[in-house]
């Protein structure tokens, strides 16, 4: 803030609006470094220590959700793991708090931008203030206060929050751009209409539209704050994407409508019955020969070591990811095949590289 009590326009950081003050941005750079130093760097060591501790204390980690509290208690006896968990939680809470405080200082201006963008293009946005929000979607995902559905400025918070989360790896949407470039296409190569499920702030469909400028690109998210901000963000980049507030398990599109459906980090944020319904809906809206690409956490081997995987359990319990354990254990590959898809790549390494590529058989 200046001596005149006015905020200066600090522009953008890549495609993300800058925080309101230099101090906020500097604090966030520190948080990002701290995450790299205290969380990412020692991750391998902490994973080994946690497994040793759970085995020594005979604390099994394979009975979600009731294993969460015993696992947390057992790991409180191992200071390096407890420190890692404390750092993860504190840094996560700190960045949400600072981001919200920062953007809220000019919240009126940011809300006006969203209102203006609602009626502007390129691209479009459709949302409903009376949307019947299912309770499962009201969780504060990643402990972002208000989650994706309850804060008007939630999209702004999410944008800067994920910038910090990725620790610089996704600056300028670099990760989404690479992901779009290597997204598996229908085998006949025809991409005229695409749909992104659980689009968040719309980084992937924007990247897809750039690759396929003639394609009709659609993207949905259950949160109005997300689709409104996604549209504003795409519009400011001059990219024509149609965003709609919609639940992935109840798609309001005709059957056989799309060539390509994508879902990036959606499935671990929805409960198992919604996962199943979403896969069925993706199958329905794809044309014969169309392709569904799912980028998400790796599936867990059902015969896994019962003392491994502490991070998934406590991320689910303490970081607003309550459905992620259901997802990694649901065998999405098999679920896709049971729905009628053909899994293009089965090897773990291929899935890590391409995502789960599910082809709807040609007629």
């Amino acid at each position, binding site marked *: *803030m*200046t*001596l005149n009590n006015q*905020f*200066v326009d*600090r522009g953008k950081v890549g495609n993300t609006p800058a925080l309101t003050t*230099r*101090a906020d941005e*500097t*604090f966030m750079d*520190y948080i990002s*470094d*701290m995450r790299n*130093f*205290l969380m990412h*760097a*020692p*991750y*391998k*060591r902490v994973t080994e220590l946690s497994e040793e501790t759970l085995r020594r204390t005979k604390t099994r980690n394979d009975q979600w*959700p009731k294993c969460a509290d015993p696992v947390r208690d057992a790991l*409180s006896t191992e200071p390096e793991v*407890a*420190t890692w*968990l*404390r*750092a993860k*939680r*504190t*840094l996560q809470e*700190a960045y949400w708090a600072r981001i919200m405080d920062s953007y809220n200082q000019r919240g009126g201006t940011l809300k006006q931008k969203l209102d203006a963008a609602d009626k502007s293009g390129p691209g479009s946005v459709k949302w409903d203030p009376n949307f019947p929000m*299912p*309770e499962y979607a009201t*969780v*504060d995902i990643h402990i972002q206060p208000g989650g994706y559905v309850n804060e008007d400025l939630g999209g702004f918070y999410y944008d800067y929050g994920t910038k910090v989360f*990725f*620790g*610089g*790896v996704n600056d300028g949407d*670099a*990760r989404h751009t690479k*992901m779009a470039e290597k997204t598996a296409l229908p085998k006949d190569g025809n991409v005229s209409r695409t749909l992104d499920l659980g689009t968040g702030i719309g980084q992937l469909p924007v990247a897809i539209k750039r690759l396929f400028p003639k394609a009709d690109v659609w993207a949905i998210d259950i949160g109005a704050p997300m689709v409104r901000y996604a549209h504003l963000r795409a519009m400011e980049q001059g990219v024509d994407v149609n965003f709609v507030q919609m639940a992935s398990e*109840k798609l309001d599109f005709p059957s056989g409508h799309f060539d390509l459906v994508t879902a990036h980090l959606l499935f671990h944020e929805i*409960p198992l*019955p*919604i996962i199943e*319904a979403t896969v*069925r809906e993706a199958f329905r809206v794809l044309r014969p020969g169309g392709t569904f690409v799912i*980028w*998400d956490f790796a599936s867990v081997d059902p015969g896994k070591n019962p003392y491994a995987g502490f991070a998934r359990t406590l991320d*689910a*319990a*303490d*970081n*607003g*990811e*309550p*459905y992620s354990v259901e997802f990694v254990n649901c065998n999405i590959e098999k679920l896709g095949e049971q729905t009628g898809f053909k899994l293009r790549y089965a090897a773990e390494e291929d899935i*890590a*590289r391409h995502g789960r590529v599910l082809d709807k058989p040609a007629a």
Partner: protein
Amino acid sequence: MLDEPKLDYVRELPGFERGHPHYFKDPMIDHLLEIVMLLGGELWVTRDRQMIVEHLLATEGKVTPDMIERFQPSPELRAQMDESRKLFTQRVFNCLYSQHEATQPRAFFEAHVGKS
């Protein structure tokens, strides 16, 4: 028409309602670690501002709050400031983990959400 999914169980999942977990037997250790981490951030904000003030005085001969807010370091200065910040966090928190093999951020994310 799809069957309505049965979702009564989701409220019982940990993580659905936001809690205040602690990770040490004595929650005061959690509080102290949190205070130290947050104080480190506030101290870094002050040092960053001091660096900008010194730079502006040396190059412009004057400084105002507006100049600080609009300040965009050159790539070289930005790299210096980033390096200073990394050294600062490492010096302060070195005792916790520095002796272990480090995982780089890109490898961490690839292990969790796939390669990009």
